Structures are given as C-alpha cells and as structure tokens.
C-alpha cells in the first residue's frame, strides 16, 4: 500500500521533511538515511516479515562497496554484477529454474521466495552509480550522501529512477522556500491520491473481469472495454504513484525526474515511450541500448538492439512469459516504426494521417496491456475470444 496509508504521511514524510529543512546542511543527508531506514524496516516487515526487513543490509553492503568504486576500477564491475545477482536471485530464481525443469517438478524451487521492497528500482540506482563511477561521469560523494541517495524513501519503492549526479547538487543545496515547495508538493500528492482512489481503484471493478472464467462467459463486445479500462487504470495508478513520489520529494525541496508526459494519444510508439515511465526509458537507453551500440551500428543490428532492450524491459517488469511477450510486442512495434521512418523519412502532417497514427498507436499500446495484465494462457484466451469469438 505505502503511499495510500496514513503511516507513510504521519510517521515518515511529514516529520522527515520538516526535520530535513530545520537541521544544518551537514546533517541533512543523515535525516534522509534515518527516516529512509525506518521506512524500509517498517514497510518491508509489513510486506515480507523479518527476512524482508533484514534486506536493509543490502543497502548497507552496497554503500560500503560503493566506497571502493573509482574510474576504470574493477570494483565497479563487482558492483554491477552484485546488483544483478541480487535481483536475479530474489526476482528470477524460480522463473529460470522453472524453465530448466519445464516438464517436471522444480527441485531447485525456493519455497519461501519473497521480493525485497523496491528491489527492481534500487537495483537500477545501484547499477547506474557503479557504471557512471567507472566511466568517471559522477563524483563519489560522501558515505552519507550516497546512503541518502539510495535510501531517499519517496522514490525508493517504485521510482522515479534517479541519477546520482542530478540528486547530489539538490542534496547539497539549501532547500527552497517552504511555502512554494509545500503548496506545490501537497497539491501534487493530492492529485496523485485522486488518480489512485477515484480513477484507478474505481476501474478495478472492470479490470477484475480479466480472468479466464469471466472471459469465457462474457459477451465478446465487452472485452475491448475491459482492456481499455486496464489501460487507463495502469496509467492512473502509476502516474498517481509518481505524482505522490515527486510531490513528497518536493516537500524536502528536492526535485526528482518526471515519469509521465501525457503518453496516450502520442503520434507513434517511439514518442509513447519517450512519455511513458520516462525515467525507466532513459535508464534503458543509457545502460542497455547505448552499450549495445545504439543507433551507430549496422541497420539489422539496430532492430535487434531494440528487441533486446524491450525484452529486458519486459523481463524487468515481471518474471513471467507474458511480460516477455509484452516486451517483444513493444520491441516489434519500435522496430516497425523505425523501418517505417526509413521508408518515409518525412512525416505526413496532414490532420487525417496524424489522427490515424495517434489512434493506431493508442490501440496497439492498449492491445499490448493484454499480455501485461494477464498470464499467457488467459491472454491467449482473451485475444482468441476477442478476434474469433
């Protein structure tokens, strides 16, 4: 739950934001560290028990190892590997070992598997820091500053994914005027809560029907509306979450990256991804697409790179075949768009083609959510009923 609980606001956000503004500059990072640790222990214990809470040790270990990072250092490679290994063990162990023993019971199955709170997001921040330290793109900062970066609780659980070189100057700067930051921050938080409570949760009444039983008995004409409802629900839910995170950070006087910029109704799939989960898209471009060669390699390789990036994106969203298919779907759309751009370099700006391209992009994105919100057999049933009857 977290952002839609009173305890988040009463025990963590308000006292932390007030304390942060009242203490001296030297103590500010440690205010974030103390409240961030408390936040992690409280919510991780609530979600995954004592073992979940003990995962705070991951942050402490990472902060110790990060002191060894320097430009061109092998310690940075260790940092990259350890962050991926941790994610692999906690998130993908049962998925990949399950693939190894596809036709039999999985003897390597981890029965008590759990996900440490926010692991998919803090892994990206650990990885980014190790990578950029190795490339000499960011300074080391003090231990307190780095801990404040990784334990900054408004963005710890589900982003927006920050960059150390952006965060550090804001941490070191004196927070801006209280009245402006708090008025805008609280407005943003309220807006996020409205999106969550009054839109996303309301649409759940429709999206709950996206299960095998209801799909079998429903009139097929209603199916597109259920999927459409999911498209709006996930937008309201995640952009609402991002609003609350960004508004919470604003109470500290810290601005974190935006995550959404009116993604639905964009002219093509590339523009959609530039406006949907922006901090993730930028991370994937900087740490997956560009290291693979980006757009500077032979044309067939560019298409392969796009597919790889979106497969990584799909796998990151969840350890399931349906997420891989969702990633593949978007990879194919991006590759198809790139091919179209090469055949027709000049976009047609006539209103009718523009409207059609916006509508087509919207329909294709909504269709993709089918693989995102249902497991593979259910998604196949959905599309079979929708298209064949």
């Amino acid at each position: 739950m977290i952002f839609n609980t009173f305890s988040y606001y009463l025990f963590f956000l308000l006292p932390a934001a007030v304390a942060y503004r009242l203490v001296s500059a030297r103590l500010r990072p440690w205010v974030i560290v103390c409240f961030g640790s408390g936040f992690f222990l409280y919510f991780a214990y609530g979600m995954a028990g004592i073992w979940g809470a003990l995962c705070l040790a991951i942050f402490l270990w990472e902060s110790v190892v990060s002191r060894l990072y320097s430009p061109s250092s092998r310690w940075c490679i260790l940092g990259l590997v350890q962050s991926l290994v941790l994610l692999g063990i906690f998130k993908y162990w049962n998925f990949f070992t399950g693939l190894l023993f596809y036709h039999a019971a999985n003897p390597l199955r981890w029965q008590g598997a759990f996900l440490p709170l926010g692991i998919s997001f803090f892994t990206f921040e650990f990885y980014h820091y190790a990578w950029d330290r190795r490339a000499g793109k960011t300074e080391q900062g003090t231990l307190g500053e780095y801990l404040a970066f990784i334990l900054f609780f408004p963005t710890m659980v589900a982003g927006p994914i920050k960059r150390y070189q952006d965060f550090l100057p804001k941490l070191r700067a004196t927070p801006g005027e209280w009245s402006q930051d708090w008025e805008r921050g609280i407005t943003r938080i309220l807006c996020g809560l409205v999106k969550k409570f009054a839109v996303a949760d309301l649409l759940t009444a429709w999206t709950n029907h996206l299960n095998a039983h209801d799909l079998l008995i429903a009139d097929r004409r209603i199916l597109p509306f259920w999927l459409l409802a999911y498209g709006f629900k996930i937008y309201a839910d995640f952009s609402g979450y991002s609003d609350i995170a960004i508004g919470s950070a604003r109470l500290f006087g810290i601005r974190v990256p935006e995550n959404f910029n009116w993604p639905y109704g964009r002219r093509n799939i590339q523009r959609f991804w530039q406006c949907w989960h922006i901090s993730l898209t930028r991370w994937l471009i900087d740490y997956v697409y560009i290291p693979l060669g980006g757009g500077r390699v032979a044309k067939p390789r560019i298409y392969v790179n796009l597919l790889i990036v979106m497969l990584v994106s799909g796998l990151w969203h969840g350890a399931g075949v349906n997420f891989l298919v969702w990633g593949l779907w978007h990879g194919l759309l991006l590759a198809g768009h790139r091919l179209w751009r090469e055949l027709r370099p000049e976009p047609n700006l006539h209103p009718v083609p523009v409207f059609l391209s916006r509508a087509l992009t919207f329909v294709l994105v909504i269709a993709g959510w089918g693989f995102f919100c249902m497991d593979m057999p259910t998604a196949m049933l959905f599309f079979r009923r929708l298209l064949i009857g």
Partner: protein
Amino acid sequence: MLYQLRITLEYIGGSTDIAPEFLRGRVDTAVRCAVWIGAILLIYAFCGQSSKFIYIDF
C-alpha cells in the same frame, strides 16, 4: 485551445509552478483552494475501496 487546457491541468495538478495567464492574481488563490477541497472530498469519497499500487510488486 488544447495547449491551454494542458498547462491549466498541469498547474492545478501541481506539476508546474507558473500559473496560466488567466489564473494569475486573486483567482489563483481561489482555484488552489478549490482544488485542495475538491481533491480531499474525492479522496474521502473513494478511499474505502483502496488497493495496492500496481508497481509496488515489480
């Protein structure tokens, strides 16, 4: 027209700091109060059915 609507929504949603031209001055304070009251009423009306945020599980 659409651009005006967009910057107005972004302002009343807290995404931007600078109010659109027609909202500046005394109207601005009234609009901000109305937004807070409206938002709190909506949250109060719908908060009973709350569920977990989707991306918490990712």
